[in-house]
């Protein structure tokens, strides 16, 4: 028990010290002006500036170029010998969620949403931030053909859950095809009962049925509104259904569909179904066989968010090739590279570099895979994804070219404020080490005192005064 208390105390202090150090107020200059000076700037939208500066005003990029000067009162970050790129946007993540990401009990769970379980204390937020990630698309799991709603967040470490929300981002929902939704509750020697669907036929059926239901639901509301507007006093509103409302938003084009899928045939299935119901798939997630049907994905207008080189972990990933992103890019698909892993997220820049090795993308194309392209896929490219005036100052400063295996993030800014600083991190470690040792010492002394019989104290009075509960 003692040990647990000590561990808990250590964790709280660890978190608290990070919070203190990264209090955004202290990181920004009073005038809200910061200049990153004399760095190699990888804008992603308009090439590389070999030696340039970025002026940040009130959290936004104000100016970028070789001649930008520091106004009076600006905080200056010396970027000489370093590289600045737009903050990385991870289009598929499950960090910062408390209590699981798979509501797998039903085949359709459009009524649940990740926004309700954002955990701002998850240390993986800080770890991914330290790897240059500034925004993460937090998706529901893949246990259901139609899963829960997703939430785009910014990794503003130290803010509460509300402070992490990427304000104004278009809402979305997770779909899933193939092995995961059909096997998540498989029949057989399992403690949970089998759940429909068990086949790819069933997956299609569940999605189709849900949209037929959603259309009927919309029709009922339309009828009601028409009757109510016509002054019909007996008109009764239909019962509100949160599941069908989310799907109605999809049908109206207000909610983005991010669909997990691997095999070419099932991706085509969903494109057919979406075309039939008149909506678009925003992104196919994983889409490891996307290279086989790049033409069809491009024609539908869907984005593809894939892994750099993972393969063979299941049958539907056995034809995955690391050239996937390159082929799809060449054939006109908007492609991003995502992590689906708190670890992988820490080096998405290097994962993007693999798309140069396999399939020969250019530097700019590779960098766009983890910045501008995911921003477009998530419909936030007016806010983030490249280094252009007017965009949020979400930036990463690296010691080496970010497509090099040797690159290490030095500073990460979100809304112009420094949320990660490698030097500060080292200082904090020493601070934590000192604090840890002090706590250990205190704990040891306490134990010594308790061992001495003469110092044994009676129970505190407030406990003796309380009657023991009758049971337990």
């Amino acid at each position, binding site marked *: 028990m003692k040990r647990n208390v000590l561990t808990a105390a250590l964790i709280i202090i660890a978190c608290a010290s990070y919070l203190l150090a990264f209090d955004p107020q202290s990181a920004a200059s009073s005038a809200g002006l910061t200049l990153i000076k004399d760095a190699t700037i990888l804008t992603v939208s308009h090439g590389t500036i070999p030696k340039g500066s970025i002026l940040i005003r009130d959290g936004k990029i104000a100016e970028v170029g070789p001649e930008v000067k520091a106004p009076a009162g600006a905080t200056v970050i010396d970027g000489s010998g370093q590289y600045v790129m737009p903050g990385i946007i991870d289009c598929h993540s499950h960090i910062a969620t408390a209590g699981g990401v798979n509501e797998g009990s039903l085949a359709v769970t459009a009524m649940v949403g990740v926004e309700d379980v954002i955990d701002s204390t998850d240390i993986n937020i800080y770890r991914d931030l330290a790897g240059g990630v500034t925004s993460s698309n937090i998706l529901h799991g893949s246990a259901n053909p139609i899963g829960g709603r997703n939430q785009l967040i910014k990794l503003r470490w130290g803010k509460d859950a509300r402070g992490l929300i990427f304000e104004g981002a278009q809402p979305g929902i997770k779909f899933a095809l193939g092995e995961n939704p059909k096997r998540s509750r498989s029949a057989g020697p399992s403690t949970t009962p089998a759940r429909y669907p068990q086949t790819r036929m069933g997956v299609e059926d569940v999605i189709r049925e849900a949209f037929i239901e959603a259309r009927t639901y919309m029709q009922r509301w339309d009828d009601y509104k028409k009757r109510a507007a016509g002054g019909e006093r007996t008109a009764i509103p239909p019962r509100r259904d949160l599941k069908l409302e989310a799907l109605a938003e999809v049908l109206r084009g207000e909610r983005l569909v991010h669909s997990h899928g691997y095999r070419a045939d099932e991706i085509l299935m969903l494109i057919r179904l979406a075309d039939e119901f008149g909506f678009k798939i925003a992104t196919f997630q994983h889409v490891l066989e996307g290279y086989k049907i790049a033409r069809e994905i491009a024609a539908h207008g869907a984005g593809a968010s894939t892994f750099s080189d*993972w393969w063979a972990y299941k049958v539907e990933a056995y034809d995955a090739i690391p050239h996937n992103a390159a082929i799809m890019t*060449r054939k006109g698909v908007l492609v991003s590279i995502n992590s689906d892993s708190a670890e992988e997220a820490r080096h998405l820049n290097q994962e993007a570099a693999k798309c140069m090795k396999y399939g020969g993308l250019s530097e700019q194309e590779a960098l766009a895979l983890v910045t501008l392209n995911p921003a477009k896929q998530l419909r936030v490219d007016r806010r983030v994804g490249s280094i252009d005036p007017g965009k949020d100052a979400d930036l990463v400063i690296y010691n080496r070219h970010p497509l090099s295996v040797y690159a290490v993030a030095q500073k990460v800014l979100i809304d112009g404020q420094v949320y990660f600083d490698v030097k500060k991190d080292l200082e904090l470690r020493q601070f934590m080490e000192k604090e840890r040792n002090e706590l250990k010492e205190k704990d040891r002394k306490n134990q010594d005192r308790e061992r001495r019989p003469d110092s044994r104290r009676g129970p505190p009075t407030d406990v003796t005064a309380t009657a023991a509960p009758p049971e337990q």
Partner: protein
Amino acid sequence: MKKPITLVNWAFALTALALAGRAAAENHVYAIRDAKVHTLGSSGTLPRATVVVVDGKIAGVGEGVKIPAGAQIINGQGLEVYPGMINAWSNLGLTEITSVPATNDAAELGDYNPHLLAFTAIHPASEHIPVTRVNGITASLSAPSGGIIAGQATLLHLDGWTVDEMALLKSAGLVLDFPSLDAAQRSRAGGGGRGGAQRRSFADIKRNYEKRVKELSDLLEAARHYDKARGANPGTERDRKLEALVPVIKGELPVFLQADSERDIKNAVDFARKEKLKVVIQGGREANKTGELLKRENIPVILGSIVALPDREDDPYDARFTLPRDLARAGIKFALTSSSSSEVRNLPYEAGFAEAYGLSHEDALKAVTLNPAEILGVAAKVGSIETGKIADLVVTDGDLLEIRTQVKHLFIAGKNVSLETKHTRLYEKYLNRP
């Protein structure tokens, strides 16, 4: 360690010279000319040199090396030559598709299976083998897993028609997952997950630990008795498990002692010392905290992947990335690995990350070439570009550890190996889909 290698090298060199003339005629002779050669041996890095390959072996390396008549010439201008990388821990050839049990042969039932050999189950036609080698990895250790003693690991050359052709070492050592006092705790804190593994009391974990360690000691003691009994009376009934342990108790076959936490490593080393075993620590996530002990006992470490999250919530974010740097500073010999069959190809980036977080370039290269060769006891044959060694060579257009670098030519045991894989075939096919 240095001396015997030199002697063996010399012997190899003589053999290679003797074979040189005959081989040229069979056209197994190659000369990679005018390349930057990273020997990782005594010659260091040669800015413009020639490597001559004759009959599977390196017949010469240097600036003025004579090219045998009839040799196939590879123009190495602008290219770099490295020794093939060696991945010292994996399930390559034992696992094809992770989620499909029918394609998995790494883990047998039972706690003690010292007599099982990875060699028996390795699938030489696995698609993972070509995919791995075209990134410059020419050898990989395939290790069984599961139970306490999972079996014996096999060191594979990543080219060959049959496993007999591929095995560099049929048995490289015994895989022993040392009983852990920390694993339960680790799985709870690892990966940033919350909740997870069920809680067991420390007293319970310790009881189980002591029981397991006693079982292990008894088993080794039984092997000693068995060895004596067989020596005294060859008619003694055979016991294949004990028989497999005889080279282990004699210190002839190394034990890959799997341990990660500081406490587990200390316990494992204590155990090894008591039992007089020749050991290599495998895993070693906190090997930096046991640096002095490992140095004193001269125990090398085969690290698990360092491209991984820290174990504890309050560990530094780069705790695993900086592990190689700390081990180098402590003077510990170590190898870097990428163990999952589908990810062995990323071995060079393990070394690249280690360098990014403080390891020197030379140490990073050695951690995936010469060090694993030395740790696995095959440095006389592979691990560096030196006359007499097996010709496992990677010819690249740049830094071996950089992601964008392309492998241009690949030699395994002197054979010019094709760079085609399942992946390149699918790439060509679908890139050209109308």
